[in-house]
């Protein structure tokens, strides 16, 4: 069962109001997305925790309504590791 991109966006934006969010529908099927999310809420969290935070916003949709979500999370300010 697919999930329209605007619903996915609003679930993320509701939980992370300052987020800059770029979502790409990878297969054009509303079921495989790549979300790039930048938010200050990720500051101080490791990657596992950052992804867990996003998953928590999607709740039970993840893995049911939404089949695949590739995640790239970026904290703010960006630390350039060179």
């Amino acid at each position: 069962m697919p999930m329209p991109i605007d619903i996915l966006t609003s679930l993320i934006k509701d939980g992370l109001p300052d987020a800059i969010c770029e979502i790409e529908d990878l297969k054009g099927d509303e079921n495989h997305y790549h979300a790039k999310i930048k938010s200050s809420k990720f500051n101080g969290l490791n990657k596992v925790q950052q992804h867990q935070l996003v998953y928590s916003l999607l709740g039970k949709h993840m893995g049911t309504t939404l089949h695949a979500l590739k995640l790239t999370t970026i904290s703010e300010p960006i630390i350039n590791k060179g």
Partner: protein
Amino acid sequence: MNIDKNAIFEKINKMLDEDDVVLFMKGDADFPQCGFSANVVGILNYFNINFKSFNVLEDDELRQGIKDFSNWPTVPQVYIKKEFIGGSDILREIAESGEIEDILKEKKIKYSVSTQSTS
């Protein structure tokens, strides 16, 4: 699905006790049945890391149990010395950044970088 969480958590803990690097995946290492799982197998093989894989498609209890155990809604999942390292996206990120080598060194996991083409 009504499952006995304690029993499955105990089983997972035992799996993690027995091997340093454990991959929960769809399919097996020789024949992954999902692109994300294949991606993780490819990364572990690239670094010549010895790992044990468990196919969640063969075990419904494990399939749900590992998600609850890790508080992570998707499979694959990689554990190193009982610590949850991440799923496919994180593995790819830390492999590209080189951070994976820091983790492997810190956890004293033997690895070497494959000279074979990964394409």
